[in-house]
């Protein structure tokens, strides 16, 4: 799979989710911040994006703790996304 395919698949999985909140957050993150992530962080984001919305949302809003350090970095960035 080349880079374009990888990004497009990720874009689909970020913007066709179960909840509008997550479409907006992950879509915005993908456009604005994903290109600036380290390789490790990018991999962690793919893992997070593959979670279901009701698993991911509590990790983003901090009501549930994340034990993976790199995922934690990405979640901190996600938490600061402002959709406007």
């Amino acid at each position, binding site marked *: *799979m080349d880079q*374009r*395919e990888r990004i*497009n*698949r990720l*874009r*689909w*999985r970020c*913007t*066709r*989710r*179960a*909840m*509008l*909140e*997550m*479409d*907006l*957050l992950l*879509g915005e993150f993908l456009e604005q911040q994903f290109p600036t992530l380290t390789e490790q962080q990018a991999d962690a984001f793919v893992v997070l994006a593959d979670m*279901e*919305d*009701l698993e991911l949302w509590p990790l983003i*809003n901090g009501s549930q703790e994340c034990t993976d350090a790199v995922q934690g970095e990405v979640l901190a960035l996600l938490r600061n*996304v*402002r*959709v*406007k």
Partner: protein
Amino acid sequence: MSKQSIPVRKFDAVIVGAGGSGLRAAIQLSEGGLKTAVLSKVFPTRSHTVAAQGGVSASLGNSEEDHWHWHMYDTVKGSDWLGDQDAIEYMCRMAPEVVVELEHFGMPFDRTDEGKIYQRPFGGHMSNFGEKPVRRACAAADRTGHAMLHALYQRNVRANTQFFVEWMALDLIRDEAGQVLGVLALEMETGEVVAFHAKATVFATGGAGRIYYSSTNAFINTGDGLGMAARAGIPLEDMEFWQFHPTGVAGAGVLITEGVRGEGGILRNSDNERFMERYAPNAKDLASRDVVSRAMVTEINEGRGCGPNKDFVLLDITHLDPATIMKRLPGIREISIQFAGIDPIKAPIPVVPTCHYQMGGIPTNYKGQVVSPDGTPVKGFYAAGEVACASVHGANRLGTNSLLDLLVFGKSSGDSVIDDVKSGAIALKDLPAGYAERTMARLDRLNTQTGGSNVNETRLDLQRTMQKHCGVFRFKDMLLEGVAKITEIEKAVAKTEIKDKSQVWNTARVEALELDNLIEVAKATLVSAEARKESRGAHVRDDAPDTPENPNGRDDVLWHKHTLWHREGSRLSYKPVTMTPLSVETIALKTRSY
């Protein structure tokens, strides 16, 4: 790509959609021994049903006395008498059975101390034909939709339902005689188009709330089932009826619950005035959804909206104690910060009435069979869930009746398929010559278009037009202008251009194809709304006000009928509302007041 090269896969039944309705239908079919395929744009448990938190209604009577007939009365009244009473009786009678069945599939409902399904009150649910509130909503904490999808999905895995995930159905296959023979679908991972050839095709593609600029619906709700049906010559029923929620975050659409106003939140206009005092002196900000929504739109239309474009009002909780906000409304604070860029402790939240639910859809009967205007079933075609119009929601849906609709009509459509296959009413007919031509021409056009319109811009144009011209409160001239505008936008949709022409994972192509569906829904909505010269349920017109002859602006003499929008020529026809239930007496027309 020529039509000869299209691979064909054969099934007894193909279901398009893996939300609550599609998965419920699939259980019936797979467990009934039919070879069943389910297509979905996303992994099943990512379907939009997940977003439903409130619950599912059933007159179980676990907390206090209740009866399906009372539920039926509430639903007819909620529908402003536009719902079909045979379908409503069927749904309300079946409710306890399908909810208990869901429990047996593993749904973790909240429980009472005695271990029964716990039930809570919800707007519009009453006992004894509208007398007093009754507890009828069954929920699994605030994740009812999520839990429901998981229970249904697991059951399907057990029954060997075959899933095709990240596939997008493009068009119905219909022969000369009008029989439906399956769908053409695009596999995103390969870009390949495949014909799913089946005895029965069930549509369960969900709603189309993305036709509006401000919508609580996730991006996936592009009305694909409606677009496919319309292109195949199936009319769409009652598309003028859309339920709006008064407080979606302006721009983003994310829902702010009524609870915020319950805690003391106040709506203000650009003069900082608490305008609800003028519209509802007693209930003020806590007046019913439609009253609040209309007041908000009136403020905006009369130039008292806020922001640079004066296109929203403010929901103010800055006067509340920050400790109360942190304690009672923490989720709302987060949502406001992330989606409006505003900390509601310090500044008010920009809000607008926001599209929430589609009452209309593909016309079906209570058996989940798609029906022609004369009521006869379209052979081989079935539909359930938000894409379908049975019609149980009529002009306005009662909260929690939608999840019930998925279970009841998902199941009944599955049963109908089994009956129709067994009785020989439907069999696998040969695919007609040239069945894929129209679809392939659409794809070819996209691949070769130059100098065309931009997909994102055209979609935004469509959404803004719908919001402005056909929103929660409707005006004659605006509707007329809206019809003209949407006709212009349709021309742009026919000329969309994508830069990426590759086969594999071409999301630009998929989004352009989704827009082809949005435009059909938008046209159907505007044209149907412009024509209906009364106010009823969620369709409220400024030129059809509340008068003694026509309370609430409803005109039963001229308009007690279902709209049917036909794509060809954007033509309308009408059909009567079914007023005869299956076993009880008609619930006679009455003014709807709460």
